[in-house]
């Protein structure tokens, strides 16, 4: 039986459909809403490539059952900013050229955005700790740190 889940995504009310209430939110966002800034990386909440904001907090949507998000406010990378109105982190990632393959970058930006929303002028160590659970295999870390520090300065 198809169930319908109402929630807000990037400020817009949406109704998501599934036969299986245990389906992770990731598949609804990517396959039904076509929001593909977030990526499937591990399905185990280990890498962070799928991170979205859930009531403003970083959430790994690859393990979040869709039935648990009814009524929630969710923001994805597409909702964080646009080329016309970039979030300071998006601009900083461009300015620092902080990507190699870029598959993990959604998670880096979304995790950092949630962190910077509550931490002003973090130290580099705090940034490293805030991103400790986000994996990158290309070795872009040094640029990502620089980008987050740059955005933090802008946002301070």
């Amino acid at each position: 039986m198809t169930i319908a889940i109402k929630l807000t995504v990037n400020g817009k009310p949406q109704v998501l459909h599934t036969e299986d209430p245990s389906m992770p939110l990731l598949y609804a966002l990517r396959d039904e809403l076509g929001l593909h800034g977030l990526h499937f990386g591990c399905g185990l909440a280990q890498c962070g490539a799928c991170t979205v904001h859930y009531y403003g907090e970083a959430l790994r949507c690859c393990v979040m059952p869709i039935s648990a998000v009814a009524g929630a406010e969710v923001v994805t990378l597409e909702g964080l900013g646009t080329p016309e109105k970039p979030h300071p982190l998006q601009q900083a990632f461009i300015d620092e050229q902080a990507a190699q393959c870029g598959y993990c970058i959604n998670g880096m930006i979304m995790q950092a955005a949630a962190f910077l929303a509550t931490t002003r002028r973090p130290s580099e160590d705090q940034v490293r700790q805030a991103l400790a659970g986000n994996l990158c295999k290309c070795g872009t870390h040094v640029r990502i740190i620089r980008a987050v520090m740059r955005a933090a300065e802008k946002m301070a």
Partner: protein
Amino acid sequence: MLPMLDTPLSRRVFLKGGGALVVTFALAPPAIEAQPSRSITKSVNPDDVGAFLAIDDRGMVTLYSGKVELGTGAVTAITQMCAEELSVPFGRVTTIQGDTALTPNQGPTFASLSIQDGGVQIRRAAATAREALLEQAAGKLGVAKNELAVHDGVITPRHGGNGVPYAELVGDRRLMIKVNPAAPLKDPKEYTIVGKPVPRLDIPAKVFGTFNFVQDVKVPGMLHARMIHPAAVRAKLEGFNDAACRKITGYLRAVRKGDFLAVVASNEWAAISASNTIVARWSAWAGLPDESKLFEYVRNSKVERDVVFQSEGDSAAGLKRGVKTLQATYELAMNTHGSIGPSCAVADYRNGQLTVWTPSQASHLLRAQLAIMLQMKPENVRCIYVEGAGCYGRNGSDDCSSEAALISKEIGRPVRLQWMRQDEHGWDPKGPPALLDYRASLDADGRITGWEADGFIPERPLRRSGVTLLAAVLADLPKFGPPGAPLHNIGLGIPYAIPNNTLTAHWLIDTPLPAAWIRAPGRMQNTFGNESFLDEIADAAGVDPFEIRVRYLKDPRGLEVLERLRRFAKWEQRGSKPRDAGPVARGRGVSYAKYELVRTYVGVVADVSVERATGRVKVDRVSVVHDCGQIINPDGLRNQIEGNVVQTVSRSVVEKLTFSRSAVTSLNWGSYPILTFPNVPEVVIDLIDRPNEVPWGAGEPTTSVIPSAIANAIFDATGARVRSVPFRPATVLAALASVPR
């Protein structure tokens, strides 16, 4: 909506041009739709300028690159080279990559050759086109060719007067020319695009979430599949039961062929649910070596052939002549490629034609292999490159593509197959283990009198057919394709003028697990041995590690790298300060390579901290001096070097594949950890730019020197030699325990 296919076929480039430089195309409005392979007539012959370049009647340039963007920035750099040589603004060039129907076969995107080979080939094509256009302009303007200059795609007389844009020259005609290898190249002094830190083409879309990875490709009518890979590496499928899957809405069917088993559904989650629900019975198989005795297995593996790859003087006599003899054995564990996004491909087989959207680093090789596997003519197979997550070599992409192709052929529908995390960690072909033995002798003055090395490294998997496609293995389909690249480059020699040396490769027949190349294959392993052993010799001879390298290096560019590195890293003579006796010992090590002995020079100094009580190693800082000749994009180059450093620190101190007698057991990031932010070193880089030299690669050279620099730093800090990569705490503690206090 996710983007539907926006194939490059909409351009008006597909006139029947044969081997033409299609400088214009006068017909047909753009149409955005996929077209079957056979309608395409554009030349892909790399002898034709038109295989690489098209200029339309608005002066827009399309570049067809056989080399692809794997996240390294190579395509931005190649686009710079093209725009520069054509003298058009960078933004006027659109680059199409790795489509077997459209792009010439420039070989796989690997081995740090994208700029060095692929870019230079494109530079020559662009130079040829520029010359041809100048000739046309000379005729049209009535001005001698050498009196003309080109700026932003407009040819004008140097001394004033009317000019003519490329677009107008092109008119409604086509220019058919062959690439002229002797076409005059621009003087690097005139460069305005090459050598500049042009921002990467792909990064904005990647930070706004609008980039289309292969995982985002959608084809009308596309179904979703997941693989059920065997429970053991060579287990046989005895049977399966998918009765419970039929309760899953959207589940369609299983696809079985031999040991190949997949599930297909109308939506992605149903495919995943079915893969978790289906019951497969696999035969028992336990043919892998005991993990704890991996290097015994390697040493006892059957040798296919021995190859002496470097020999100077008489090493046996040299070894006898010394008064002090050293020997050491170095070993390196297996690695997975560990792509952050699991492999994914979309395949569409219908009417005897196969199209595969693939993240393969080698679309042309994949096409050849798929054609053999499915007994098709290569011209009926089209592979279209779409970026996946970084692959760092031959990861699971081609295997996943082969599986998608087989499923699509079996069901007659387009299908998207994405691997799950355990598929990528479990089934990507692995970087094989390596074992290296060294012997050397020193005379009374500490001079080396002889040096011998023996490497035990598998070669066989790639000799006949690239890396065998997994679908062909599982479904027992034809496998043997065109010759692949060697797994480990044989240019493993030492970059130093050390007298009386013999270096022998013992190519092994077997690998514990199916093998493929991972970044700097063979070069990282051999450089680890060479540069660690030289450090041991330096210590035995009482010579500073920089000094011993300078003593035996005769190459001026190499010496410049070492001298700059000595200053850049503020190196102090080893032994000028006492070792840290406290709980955390700090030290630094140097390593140097001339990649494959013929190209990019790189030297690094690693600063490390070693916790004596735990054996934990932290790499604090890595200083790099790098000379890859002419730099195309200095910021892209820095990004690559940083990536080389951080990724290889991860391989050196953290990453280690684990396995049972049956299968890989490090199936996710919990069991196969990698370096994380708190432990990422600071990376500082000094680039040597040589605009008048040829450009060499940078995708791998820095990788080759990292493990040895860290090992040498651990020795500097503690007096302990670590000779087994990775330098995990247990390895380091064991080495610390062997140091006389």
